[in-house]
């Protein structure tokens, strides 16, 4: 009745059929609902807290990147001008065109994509199979292998580097993409323990009765892996793919070790970025009269170019996060 009519505060106040105390009570209820929420609706206070937290922490992450981006848009005059902090005086894209040519972008991007993509796919597939093996089956010595896997994760990789490098050169893996795909194929790529652990947990959450039902229907192990386990663990695949891609993309220590020490044409954006200054000086020799000194703006432009592909990949993959909510139809568990 009255509650239904009074859709807003003004309505409540103007409604002459109510006494003052009724009005007061109604407003109090409404304020309560507005501030604290009811049923599934979140109250204003909670929303305020959520957005404040997200915005302020997001700002902390965004600030350096924004700083980088702005600096990359500044001309030399803007960089030297103390008064110009956040908004460059004009749209200045020369830094990008210079960084673009210094980075040798076509070769570097191709190399980066090859090194990031191929081992990532292998690593994700193999890790998921291994994780499935660990989670689904009971077999002798399982705990031992599991423990060894975790221990191999905590040994500082630096100390294994030299024996590994010698092994790789004996196997003839250095100097080509094989130095990355081969370990990934054998489940020993970058940080692959964490991927195996993630898959292990995701597959364990799938109800056992689903597999049993499939087996009763005559599915073999591979079929039940691909038709049951994989669709139930899509978020794990996305997360693993993203991490693996980023980590391979950003890897400079291994790429320098395996690629540049032997003669290959493969180069990556990150290696080019490391050699940015020397490359720049080669391309734009410094003479007394010329303004061709490297500055922060150009360096930052190079850095922005190096992280841009990762952001694009992420932006397109993150929407699949939500679309994998499963309904198993298994009851009575």
């Amino acid at each position, binding site marked *: 009745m009255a509650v239904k009519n009074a859709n807003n505060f003004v309505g409540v106040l103007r409604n002459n059929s109510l006494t003052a105390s009724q009005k007061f009570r109604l407003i109090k209820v409404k304020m309560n609902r507005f501030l604290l929420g009811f049923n599934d609706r979140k109250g204003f206070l909670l929303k305020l807290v959520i957005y404040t937290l997200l915005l302020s922490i997001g700002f902390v992450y965004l600030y350096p990147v924004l700083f980088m981006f702005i600096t990359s848009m500044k001309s030399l005059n803007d960089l030297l001008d103390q008064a110009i902090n956040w908004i460059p005086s004009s749209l200045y894209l020369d830094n990008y065109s210079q960084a673009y040519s210094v980075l040798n972008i076509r070769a570097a991007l191709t190399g980066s994509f090859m090194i990031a993509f191929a081992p990532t796919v292998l690593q994700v597939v193999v890790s998921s199979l291994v994780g499935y093996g660990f989670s689904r089956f009971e077999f002798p010595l399982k705990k031992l292998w599991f423990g060894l896997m975790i221990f191999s994760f905590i*040994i500082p990789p630096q100390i294994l580097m030299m*024996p590994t490098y010698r092994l790789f050169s004996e196997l003839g893996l250095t100097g080509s993409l094989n130095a990355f795909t081969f370990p990934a194929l054998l489940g020993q790529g970058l940080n692959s323990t964490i991927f195996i652990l993630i898959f292990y947990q995701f597959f364990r959450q799938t109800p056992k009765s689903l597999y049993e039902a499939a087996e009763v229907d005559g599915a073999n192990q591979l079929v039940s892996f691909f038709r049951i386990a994989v669709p139930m663990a899509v978020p794990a695949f996305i997360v693993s793919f993203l991490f693996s891609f980023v980590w391979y993309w950003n890897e*400079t220590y291994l790429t320098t070790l395996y690629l540049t020490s032997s003669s290959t044409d493969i180069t990556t954006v990150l290696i080019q970025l490391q050699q940015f200054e020397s490359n720049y000086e080669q391309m734009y020799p410094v003479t007394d009269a010329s303004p061709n000194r490297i500055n922060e703006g150009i360096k930052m432009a190079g850095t922005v170019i190096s992280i841009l592909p990762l952001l694009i990949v992420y932006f397109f993959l993150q929407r699949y996060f939500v679309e994998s909510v499963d309904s198993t139809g298994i009851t009575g568990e």
Partner: protein
Amino acid sequence: MKFKVKRETIYGYTFILPWIIGFLLLVLWPMIQSFYFSLNDMRITPHGLRFVYVGFNNYLNVWLQDMFFIEELVRFALDTLLRVPVIVVFALIIAMLLNQEVKFKGAFRTVFFLPVIVASGPVIDQLLEQGATSIPMVNQDVIVGILTSIFPMWIATTISDLFSQIITILWYSGVQILIFLAVLQKINPSLYEAAKIDGGSNWECFWKITLPTIKPIILINMVYTLVALANSGQNPIINLIYVNMFNATRGYGFASAMAWMYSVIIGLMLLVIFLAFREKKSKRAF
């Protein structure tokens, strides 16, 4: 029945076979070599590698001769003790916030992916150089001043310590946030609906549904956080190992011994985390 068990063994080993081969070839073999190095006084000479067997002397020397190792180790252990739980709890909170219906979800999620990209690459070094990873508006001295005027000294220093680490903590939690986000997606929404119908509050839902489901993932995140902190390039012990590797008087053998001691200690810390989680599990009556 016995046949069944045997078949499961075959299946299990078939699935993990690639990993076992990789482990034996690419991890165990270098590990054995590195252990052998650690028992020797090893030098890299122009004529190749030169070994002088010294037994466990390198290990003794790590504890007795190196002045920095123990000091750094203690500092690292205390730091980690503080950071691991803070990072994991923080990541969980952020993931839960991002998992809700918020406006500009895609934009927020992209922003929270930034630390994954930035912290693993060379970008972080550049940013640290520029001082861009500290919050510009917050003046540390002022906060410390206020804190010391209110609290006794030791509380104030702990809080301000944590505060000065906040930014680092934030940057190290990108991966964990995404892992949590992935697992939160998997929780069946009908569970929450059922709980709501039975009159459960959000708070109860969190403790009774969310937390038990994601508990194993919390453990994984703790493992990851610990290892990421332990093996990051910013860790002084890793730098110490690295410096010793090419040191004229100490050499590779000494560095290997140090790395082995270090991994054993990290292993022990990991074991503590595992035990802490296992104990709670047995207490829960299912």
